[in-house]
């Protein structure tokens, strides 16, 4: 990334050379003037070829004849890069390269791979967040060895495509008015929160559901009858950070769809439910509408009744469309309003003129109504409605080639760090008045926003979802029988709905801990609190043994027999008392829904709310009611032991110990795992009579174990839960083995055996290194890229802020958002020249 700044490098290099007269100074990101023959080959010969020679090479990998990087051998070089960068190679018992030498070798490979693969799809692996930990933790947080000189950091100038959720939330602002924040019920979804996924996990924009007062049929009929559109922007990532600026673009199918949706939105902005319903359906006299229902019309748009109360925001688009006469003033007001609503900034004059022109032309062609709708829909496709620019075109570069973001770019960057909707009035005013240009300006606004609960900050919650990955449980498709074996209901969508509810519950728990803002990570890892629905009494329960199940069934049978006997006796008594009379109908058998497989817990506590989707599914909508309870002691500890996280890290049939272990290794210990070699056919044997731990013996083969030893022993302690997240003491009717081991953590005090997940979590939660790794992930999320060594001061400052303020997320966030990495952008020379040419 920083190789894009040759000017900077030249300045630093000359300074460094002066400073180090004679000795070689390494500056991260500096372009290396080294070649294969003079640098890389000697490295390979000295450190690799002994074991990876031409005869009987280790791991069947020969490097003795590996030539300069080219398209054909790029895969091998990528592996070499990963192994050397992660200090996997050379093996620990062999001579190690000097720190600088290793860094240079790693940089050289990346540089060569980028060069060689430039026109073949490029080389981007080092930019992927999954490779963020490839930067040595000790170098970031420890003392730098001599010979390394850092340059002041910055991030590249760039554009970020909005995420599907941001996009839907932005569009939702146009047609739905959300409730204002209620301090009495802080957990309820309000204005500024995201549009959440619905009962099935689908992200949709709903039209007019706040006005529906009656419908025919059940929940499925309602869901079919209401108007909704799904998110059209794509998002491919399910684990980890979902949105670096360079992940996504918008393709033509998406653009076409956005135009279609724009059409629907503009019409709804203008006419409300009239754009999706017949006039007679809009009435407060429900009966009068029902009288017009002709038979079974379930699932049809005409099966809905809308109230007459206007709920949507009435905007200049409404003003434009309601009047027959078209005036320039109304047209421009509509254009400018939509532009700002969609891009979060007012249009410049030329932008306003441009869209005004399109709208007028369209009206000329199609008449006012259709023309205005078509013309205005083009604004939905403006670059800045889909991408957020951080181009830093204004401002002079400092001596390192860095430019501070300012005005709208800085204001929107700060806004986007916390929010999905447009800047509030105070921030907008600051931007307009030229008070968003400095570090102090950012500090002022961030502090203000963090202190105000009514300013919703869904991006912070998004970070915790990305970091923990606890929001995937509802998307893990479970085998019906395997699911039933865990003890939870496998009827219909019950389990999946429980999982989506669980995600919302965990969201709320995260928020409660954030509200206190003390030892945030430690508390998330070790809290005994649970935000729960009634169903969680099962999910947080204990799987019964076979004997217990039998006993439960016998008890139920006995109770039923007793009930029947009592009923018969009562009947007999009645007959005796009323001879010759017809006995009354027997009472309806009470419905008993006993789960014999699970001993439930009794999760009780004060009522609270979780942020779930608004009425999107009629009576089947998700319910916000929750209780704040305590989890069973000795069985649960923090959100890694909650079903939402556990199921998110499971598969159709069983737990996913490898994925869980990988999570601990990467997200808590800061370790890196090289990609699975393509020659590996990663499959565990299908042996239902064996435990997962036993089946994972295949990963202990030498070739696999070098990586799996970093993951498996960290994931297996979670075997104390089955794959629905229910606590268990037996597996296949034998005591479950929950032991594990922390190795090579980078913190010797952590290394060693653990008896179960709780012991492991307790250890990890005390670790300074774990907190630092958490800060590294926060950096990636808010800065939008992987850290480099040059970011070490930013990371150290952020960690210090977190620590010195008692584990405060807000303090860490303030530090990150006022750091050079957040404030400064570096533009390439070429782009600068083109930008200047464009301006001229």
């Amino acid at each position: 990334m920083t190789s894009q700044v040759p000017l900077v490098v030249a300045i630093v290099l000359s300074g460094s050379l002066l400073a180090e007269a004679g000795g070689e100074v390494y500056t991260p990101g500096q372009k290396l003037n080294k070649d294969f023959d003079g640098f890389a080959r000697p490295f390979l010969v000295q450190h690799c070829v002994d074991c990876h020679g031409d005869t009987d090479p280790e791991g069947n990998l020969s490097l003795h004849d590996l030539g300069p990087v080219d398209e054909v051998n790029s895969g091998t070089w990528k592996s070499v890069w990963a192994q050397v960068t992660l200090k996997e190679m050379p093996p620990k018992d062999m001579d190690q390269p000097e720190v600088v030498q290793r860094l240079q070798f790693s940089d050289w490979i990346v540089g060569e791979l980028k060069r060689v693969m430039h026109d073949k799809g490029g080389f981007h692996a080092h930019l992927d967040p999954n490779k963020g930990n490839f930067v040595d933790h000790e170098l970031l947080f420890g003392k730098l060895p001599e010979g390394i000189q850092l340059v002041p950091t910055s991030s590249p100038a760039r554009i970020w495509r909005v995420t599907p959720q941001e996009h839907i939330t932005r569009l939702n602002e146009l047609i739905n008015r959300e409730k204002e924040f209620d301090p009495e019920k802080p957990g309820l979804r309000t204005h500024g929160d995201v549009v959440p996924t619905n009962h099935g996990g689908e992200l949709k924009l709903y039209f007019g559901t706040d006005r529906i007062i009656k419908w025919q049929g059940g929940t499925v009929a309602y869901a079919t009858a209401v108007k909704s559109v799904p998110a059209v922007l794509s998002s491919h990532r399910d684990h980890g950070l979902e949105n670096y600026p360079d992940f996504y673009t918008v393709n033509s199918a998406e653009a076409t769809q956005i135009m279609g949706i724009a059409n629907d939105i503009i019409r709804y902005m203008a006419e409300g439910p009239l754009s999706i319903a017949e006039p007679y359906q809009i009435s407060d006299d429900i009966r009068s509408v029902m009288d017009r229902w002709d038979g079974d019309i379930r699932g049809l748009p005409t099966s809905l009744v809308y109230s007459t109360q206007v709920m949507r925001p009435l905007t200049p688009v409404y003003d434009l469309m309601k009047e027959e006469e078209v005036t320039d003033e109304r047209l421009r007001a509509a254009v400018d309003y939509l532009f700002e609503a969609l891009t979060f900034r007012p249009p410049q004059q030329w932008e306003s003129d441009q869209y005004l022109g399109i709208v007028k032309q369209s009206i000329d062609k199609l008449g006012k109504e259709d023309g205005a709708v078509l013309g205005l829909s083009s604004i939905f496709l403006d670059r800045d409605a889909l991408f957020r620019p951080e181009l830093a075109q204004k401002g002079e570069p400092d001596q390192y080639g860095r430019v501070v973001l300012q005005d709208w770019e800085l204001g929107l960057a700060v806004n986007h760090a916390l929010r999905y909707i447009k800047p509030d009035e105070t921030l907008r005013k600051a931007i307009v008045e030229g008070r968003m240009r400095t570090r102090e300006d950012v500090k002022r606004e961030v502090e203000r926003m963090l202190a105000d609960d009514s300013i919703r900050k869904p991006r912070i919650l998004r970070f915790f979802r990305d970091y923990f990955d606890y929001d995937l449980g509802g998307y893990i498709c479970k085998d019906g029988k395997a699911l039933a074996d865990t003890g939870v209901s496998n009827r219909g969508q019950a389990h999946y709905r429980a999982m989506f509810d669980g995600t919302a519950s965990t969201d709320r728990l995260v928020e409660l801990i954030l509200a206190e803002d003390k030892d945030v990570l430690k508390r998330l890892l070790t809290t005994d609190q649970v935000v729960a629905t009634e169903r969680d009494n099962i999910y947080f329960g204990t799987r019964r043994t076979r004997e217990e199940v039998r006993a439960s069934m016998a008890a139920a049978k006995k109770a039923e027999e007793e009930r029947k006997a009592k009923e018969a006796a009562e009947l007999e008594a009645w007959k005796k008392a009323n001879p010759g009379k017809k006995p009354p109908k027997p009472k309806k058998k009470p419905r008993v829904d006993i789960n014999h497989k699970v001993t439930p817990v009794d999760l009780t506590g004060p009522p609270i709310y979780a942020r779930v989707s608004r009425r999107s599914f009629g009576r089947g909508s998700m319910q916000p009611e929750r209780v704040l309870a305590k989890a069973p002691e000795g069985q649960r500890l923090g959100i890694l032991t909650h079903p939402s996280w556990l199921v998110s890290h499971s598969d159709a049939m069983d737990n996913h110990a490898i994925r869980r272990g990988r999570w601990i290794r990467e997200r808590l210990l800061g370790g890196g795992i090289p990609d699975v070699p393509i020659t590996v056919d990663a499959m565990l044997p299908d042996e239902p009579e064996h435990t997962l731990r036993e089946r994972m013996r295949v990963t202990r083969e030498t070739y696999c174990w070098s990586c799996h030893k970093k993951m498996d022993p960290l994931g297996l302690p979670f075997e104390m839960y089955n794959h629905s997240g229910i606590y268990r003491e037996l597996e296949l009717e034998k005591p479950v083995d929950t032991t594990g081991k922390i190795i090579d953590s980078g913190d010797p005090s952590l290394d060693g055996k653990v008896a179960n997940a709780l012991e492991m979590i307790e250890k990890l939660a005390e670790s300074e290194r774990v907190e630092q790794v958490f800060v590294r992930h926060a950096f990636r999320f808010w800065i939008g890229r992987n850290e480099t060594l040059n970011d070490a001061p930013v990371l150290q400052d952020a960690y210090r802020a977190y620590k010195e303020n008692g584990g405060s997320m807000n303090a860490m966030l303030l530090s990150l958002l006022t750091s050079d990495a957040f404030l400064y952008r570096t533009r390439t020379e070429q782009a600068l020249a083109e930008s200047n040419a464009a301006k001229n």
Partner: protein
Amino acid sequence: MLNRRTMLRHMAAGAGAAFSLPLLPNQLMASPTSNSTPKRIIFFLQNQGFDPLTCIPDGMTTSGSLAKANLPEPISALEPYKERLHIINGLHGVHTSPSHSAFFGALGGYRGGDGVPPSASTIDYELSKVLPETLLPHLCIGMDSIENMTTKPTLATLSASGAGQPIFMYSNPNHLYQMLYGGISSGDIRRQHEARSNVLNQVEQFAFNKGRALPAADKQRYGQYVQGFKDVNGLRDRLDTVADHLRKFAPKVDERYTKPQFETDWHDVLLDLGISALTSGITNTLTIASGRGEIFGAWKGLGIQQQGHNLGHMDQPDNPIWVKIRQYNSRMLVKIMETLESVPEGSGTMMDHTLIVYTSNNADKQHTSGANWPVMLLGNFDGAFKTGCFTQLQGKRPINSLYTSLLRASGVDCDRFNMSEQLAKKFDDGNGPLKEVLA
């Protein structure tokens, strides 16, 4: 990351119509002199289930020829075509959760449900990628009640280009006509076509202008955004340049488009448009969703007053309502075959290189476990499929194995479609394509 090919595939994904690489007009058509044989595939999914008793000839319990059998009343319209027909009974889709519709899972072969986003691409999309390239590799049309088609003219419930990437189907024939034949239209459609073209051309120009000053690293990514508009506009231009050719295939717009008496008027013209997209060579893959993958739908034009969910609660065999719906489907299938047969291609006709897959997104009925998922194939796809027969399977192979067979017949070397080995252990007692259906 994203390259041009992926991008084109993404484009194919979302629109229910995809825009492909520029082609010369003469490549648009299925030219007799062309070296690669054009092939095309049509998926026809009727909602609410496909009861096997409505398609299996009386007394047929084991696999065998249909030559001497009489097709049941609901599909009797196919009698003259039964040498092209292959009725398959005994596939399963229990892993797709098909009660009340498997939604994306029906063509994806994975768990689906109401409100559940697609977890992977669907077979129609995958085939559209590998079949000989056309201007719009994939077109989806959906038929529903008139109110639903008017209020929600596009909907995505059945096809997907990947996880979380639904493909929209067209339900308003006026919109679809404008997209396909705007260039040769007149009157209102023409005006709308021109206005939309004008807007999109300008949007492309704006997008281009705002990309000029981007950093090099972002240029390629943003370039794809701009390229998207170029493709949209390019497709329109290319369709315009082959207007004379298209004119021969474009249906005539009549009052059924603008003033439909029943929803079936729109169903009929949507079918006409879909067929014309095939015969004109605009597309190679057509997905038809009667009932749009949901559990409602209306067919008042057939004299059926009941609509929606209740239809699914009725037994289908010998039910006059379901006989009418299935007969209507069958007539549509006949229309497709007759039309394709009338267009010469290679040494035969278009139909020789075509396959129609007829089934339901609900397996055999509305409330079903998916233990049986009847399918009818029509056509032999250039000799790839057996025809004129009934095949009884034992419920041990999933619909995914049929989809694997389709991919194999299209030249893709694969053993499974959207099914991991782990799932296959539970849900598939075989591997690779269905031997019983491939010639």
